C-alpha cells in the first residue's frame, strides 16, 4: 500500500493552548482512515492544517512527498487535498448546481466542461433534481451531500470529511455511508473522516486513529481501537476503563453519547441507529 | 524636553476623549453586531446640543452633559426601535444597517446645516483660556476637565457592565443572544438599551470634544475613523484594551502633528489603521474584531 498523505509531528498552538500536539498520520492510497476522539480533541484543527486553512505551528504535511502544509487552502486544493466543513457552508447565494460548479472550475482551474462535471456529481450525490434550487431549501442531509459534491468537484486525491454523517436521520446516514464508500470505490479517492457516529466509523474505516486533548492516543483497526483502555478512558473516564476492559464483543466499546445510553457499540446489521450530535461530554470532558 | 513632556501629557489627556468615543461604537458592535455609521453624526449632534445649551441658556457645557446624554440616549433608542430593529440580524443585515445608519447621518448633517449653518463653532466659557500647571506643563482647564469626565464615565460604565444585573445581561447578550432568550432575558430590550447607551456615549464625546475643538456639521467622520481604529486595535470588550489603544492613537497622532506637515495629519488615522491591519489584525490583546 503506497502512502499518499503523511502528516509528520503536526502541532498547532493557539496562544497558550496546544490544540494539536505532535500528531503523526499516514494515509495509504485508497484507504479510509477514521479519526475519532472526544469533543475538543483537536480533530477539526488537524483537518484545517492538512487542508491548508491554517498553518501548523510545527510539523508538516506531505502529499506524495510534496509539502502542502503552511500554504493557502488553494495550494492544498490544487495539489489534491480538499476538506468539507463540520458545519456545512454552502454558498447561499448560488444554486446547488452553481455551488458544485465553483468547485469544478476553481479546484483545478478547469473552467471548460465544468457544468457537465458538476451535473455528473449531482447525479452521483442524488441532488440532480435540486440543481436549480438554492441551498437554503435543502435538508441538512442534502446540504451535506452538496458539500461533498462540491468538494469532489475539485478533483481531489484525498478527501477530508468532517462529520458528514452526524446530525442526520438513520436512513440518510446509511445513504451517506454508502456514498462515501462509493467515493472510494468508484472514484479511487483516499479518505480521512472525522466522525462521532460510531457505527459509521467502524463500518467505513479501514483504520482508525484516536485523538485526545490534541495527542494521538491510539491507532489501528477499528475493532482493536475501541477495546483499547486508553481510548475508553478518554471517552468515559478512568473508572469506566477500570470496569470495561476484557468484556467480550459488543458490550465494552465506548460511544461518545450521554452516559445514560448503554455503552454498547451496535454490531453491524443489528442497530444501525447513529447516535446523533453527541455534544454532552461524558466523563471528565468539558 | 519640555516640548516632549507637553506632547505626552496632551496626548494622555486626549486619549480619555478618544476612549469615550470608541467605547460607544464598540459597545453597539459588540452586542448588536451592527456598526453604527451614525456614530459621527451623533458626536456632531452632541457638540451642537452642548453648544446650543450654552449659547441660549448659558449652561456650562460640562454641566449640560446629563442633558446631552439623556437626549442622545433617547435618540439612540428611537433609531434602534424605529429603524435598525427592522433589519435582518446577522451578516445579511450588515451592509444594510451600514447604509441605513449612514442615511441617518446624512439627515442629521443636513439638519445641522439648516439649523446652525455650516460655520465653525466652539464652546467658549470664561475659563476656557485658563490653565493649570502640572508636570511642568501648562494644562488647559478644558483638557483636564474632559479627561477627568471621560475617565469617570468609563469607570462608571465598567461598573455598570460588571456589577449591575442589566449590565451583565448586556454582556451576556453580546456573547450569546440565543442562550439569553432561553434564560428569560428580554434580548430586544437589551438591544434597545445598548443602542441607547452607545449613542449616549457618542453624545458625551461630542459635547466634550466641543469644548476642545471647533466643529461644524461635517464634524464626526474623523472621529468615527479614530473610534474605529481604537476598537480594532484595542479589541472588543476590553476596557483596558480600549484605553491602551486610545492612548497609543493619541500619542502617535500627537507626534505626527509635531513632525508632519499639516496636510498629512489627516491621513494619520488611516495610516495607523492600515498598519494595524497589516501587523496585528488581532488587536493588541488578541481579541479579534476582524475575521
Amino acid at each position, binding site marked *: 500500500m503506497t502512502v499518499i498523505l503523511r502528516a509528520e509531528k503536526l502541532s498547532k498552538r493557539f496562544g497558550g493552548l496546544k490544540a494539536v500536539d505532535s500528531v503523526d498520520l499516514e494515509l495509504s492510497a485508497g484507504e479510509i482512515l477514521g479519526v475519532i476522539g472526544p469533543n475538543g480533541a483537536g480533530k477539526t484543527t488537524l483537518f484545517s492544517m492538512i487542508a491548508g*486553512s491554517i498553518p501548523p505551528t510545527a510539523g508538516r504535511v506531505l502529499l506524495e512527498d510534496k509539502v502542502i502544509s503552511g500554504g*493557502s*487552502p488553494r495550494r492544498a486544493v490544487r495539489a489534491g487535498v480538499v476538506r468539507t466543513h463540520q458545519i456545512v*457552508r454552502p*454558498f*447561499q*447565494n*448560488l444554486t446547488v448546481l452553481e455551488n458544485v460548479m*465553483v468547485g469544478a*472550475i*476553481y479546484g483545478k*482551474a478547469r*473552467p471548460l466542461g465544468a457544468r457537465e462535471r458538476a451535473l455528473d456529481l449531482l447525479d452521483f450525490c442524488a441532488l440532480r433534481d435540486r440543481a*436549480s434550487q*438554492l441551498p437554503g431549501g435543502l435538508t441538512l442531509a442534502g446540504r451535506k451531500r452538496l458539500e461533498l459534491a462540491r*468538494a469532489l468537484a*475539485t478533483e481531489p486525491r484525498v478527501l477530508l470529511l468532517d462529520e458528514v454523517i452526524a446530525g442526520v436521520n438513520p436512513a440518510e446516514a446509511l445513504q451517506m455511508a454508502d456514498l462515501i464508500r462509493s467515493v472510494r470505490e468508484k472514484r479511487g479517492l483516499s479518505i480521512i473522516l472525522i466522525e462521532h457516529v460510531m457505527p459509521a466509523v467502524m463500518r467505513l474505516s479501514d483504520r482508525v486513529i484516536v485523538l485526545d486533548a490534541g495527542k494521538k492516543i491510539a491507532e489501528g483497526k477499528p475493532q482493536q481501537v475501541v477495546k483499547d483502555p486508553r481510548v475508553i478512558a478518554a471517552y468515559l473516564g478512568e473508572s469506566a476503563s477500570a470496569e470495561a476492559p476484557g468484556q467480550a464483543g459488543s458490550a465494552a466499546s465506548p460511544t461518545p453519547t450521554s452516559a445514560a445510553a448503554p455503552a454498547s457499540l451496535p454490531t453491524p446489521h443489528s442497530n444501525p441507529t447513529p447516535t446523533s450530535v453527541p455534544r454532552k461530554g461524558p466523563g471528565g470532558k468539558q | 524636553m519640555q516640548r516632549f513632556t507637553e506632547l505626552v501629557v496632551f496626548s494622555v489627556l486626549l486619549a480619555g476623549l478618544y476612549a469615550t468615543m470608541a467605547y460607544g461604537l*464598540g*459597545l453597539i458592535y*459588540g452586542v448588536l*453586531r451592527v*456598526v453604527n*455609521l451614525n456614530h459621527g453624526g451623533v458626536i456632531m449632534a452632541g457638540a451642537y446640543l452642548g453648544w446650543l445649551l450654552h449659547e441660549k441658556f448659558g449652561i456650562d457645557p460640562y454641566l449640560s452633559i446629563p442633558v446631552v446624554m439623556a437626549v442622545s440616549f433617547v435618540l439612540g433608542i428611537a433609531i434602534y426601535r424605529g429603524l435598525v430593529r427592522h433589519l435582518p440580524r*446577522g*451578516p*445579511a443585515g*450588515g*451592509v*444594510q*444597517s*451600514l447604509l*441605513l445608519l*449612514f*442615511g441617518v447621518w*446624512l*439627515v442629521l448633517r*443636513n439638519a445641522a446645516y*439648516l439649523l446652525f449653518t455650516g460655520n465653525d463653532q466652539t464652546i467658549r466659557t470664561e475659563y476656557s483660556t485658563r490653565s493649570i500647571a502640572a508636570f511642568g506643563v501648562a494644562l488647559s482647564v478644558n483638557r483636564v476637565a474632559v479627561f477627568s469626565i471621560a475617565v469617570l464615565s468609563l469607570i462608571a460604565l465598567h461598573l455598570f457592565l460588571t456589577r449591575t444585573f442589566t449590565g451583565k445581561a*448586556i454582556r451576556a447578550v*453580546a*456573547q450569546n443572544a440565543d442562550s439569553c432568550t432561553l434564560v428569560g432575558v428580554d434580548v430586544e430590550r437589551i438591544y434597545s438599551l445598548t443602542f441607547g447607551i452607545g449613542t449616549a456615549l457618542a453624545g458625551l464625546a461630542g459635547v466634550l470634544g466641543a469644548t476642545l475643538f471647533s466643529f461644524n456639521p461635517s464634524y464626526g*467622520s474623523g472621529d*468615527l*475613523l479614530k473610534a*474605529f481604529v481604537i476598537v480594532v486595535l484595542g*479589541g*472588543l*470588550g476590553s476596557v483596558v484594551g480600549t484605553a491602551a489603544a486610545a492612548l497609543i492613537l493619541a500619542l502617535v497622532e500627537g507626534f505626527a502633528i509635531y513632525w508632519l*506637515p499639516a496636510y*498629512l495629519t*489627516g491621513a494619520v488615522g488611516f*495610516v495607523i*489603521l*492600515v498598519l494595524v*491591519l*497589516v501587523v496585528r489584525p488581532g488587536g493588541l490583546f488578541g*481579541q*479579534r*474584531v476582524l*475575521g
Partner: protein
Amino acid sequence: MKLLPHWVSRPALAGLVVAVAVGAVLPKVLGLSVYSQNQVTETFLFVAAALAWNWMGGYLGQVSFGHSAMFGLGGFISARVLLALHLPFWMAWVVGGLTAAAYALVWGHPTLRLRGPYFSIATIGVGEATRLVMTYWEDLTGGSSGLSLPITQGLKSELYWWALALMALVMASSYALRKSTFGLGLLAIKSDVDAAADVGISPTLMQDIVLLLSGFTVGVCGAFYASYQNFIEPGDMFGFDRSISFVLMAVIGGVGTIIGPALGAVVFVMLRQYLIGSYPQLYLGIYGLLLIVVILFEPLGMMGLFFRVARRFGLMRPELEATLEAKAAVGGAAADPGAREGSAP
C-alpha cells in the same frame, strides 16, 4: 454566435444593442437642446461610474464610501497630462484610469482584509485622507483654486458619443463580470470567503482584480468629467458628497444586481437636477431619507421592485426571483467579522 462566450444570453445582448441604439438616436429623435444633450452625457457617465462602483460594493459585497479618491485622481492626472502633453484626450483618460487603478490597489489590497462594515469605515478614511492630501498638493490639483482645461469648441457634443461608448463598454463588462466563471467566483467570495478559499479560489487575487477594474473605470470617468467640465477642483472631485453619490446611485437602483445601478444613476441625475432647482439646501437630507427608505422597504431598490412586480404578474418564476435576489444580496456567512468571537464589553 460562436464569437461570444457561452454565458452571454441572447436577450442580454439584444438589450445592450437596443440601449446603444436608443442612445444613438436619442438626440435627433427627441430634438434635444444642447443643454439637455449634455445632461444625457452626464447621465451616461454616471451610469458607468455607478456600475463600476457596484463591482466592489455589489459583486464583491464590499461597500466603499471612498470611491471619489479614484474619480478625482483620474480626473486630475488626466487633466495634467492634457495640459502638459497635448495627447488626444482619450489617451489622457487611460493614463488617468491606470493611475487610479494603481492607487485603488495600493490602498485596497491591505484594506480588503477587513470584512464588511469595517472595510466600509476604512474607505471613509481613504476618501478623506486622499482629499486632504490632494487639496494641499497644489502642483497636481491646483489646490482650492482647482484646474482649468482649455475649452475646445464642439467638444462637449462630441463627448456625448464617447460617453455612450463608455457606458456601453461598462455595461457589457458589468454583465461579463457577473455571468462569467470569474463572476461565479466573486459570488462565492461574497457569500463565504473562507469556504471559497477551501475549494480552490484565491480571494485576494480576485479582489485585487476587481479593485483594479473598478478603480480604472471610475478613474476614467473622472478623467472624462474633467474634459467635460473643463474645470475641476479637489473639494468636489475628491469630496465625500461625490463618494456618497456613487453609493446612492447603486442603492437606489439595486446594489448587487447587474443593471440596477444604471437605473439608479438615471434617477439620481434627475433627482439632483430637481433638488438643485427647488430645494438646494435639502439635498443631503433627501439623499439620507432615500437611503433609509430604500433599505427599510426595498433593499434591492428599483430592481427589487421590478422583481417583485414581475413575479406578482407571473412574468418571473418565484424560483428565478429568489436566485436573482440571492445573488444580489450583499453579505454572507463570513461577512460578519466579529461573528466568531463572542467578546462581551
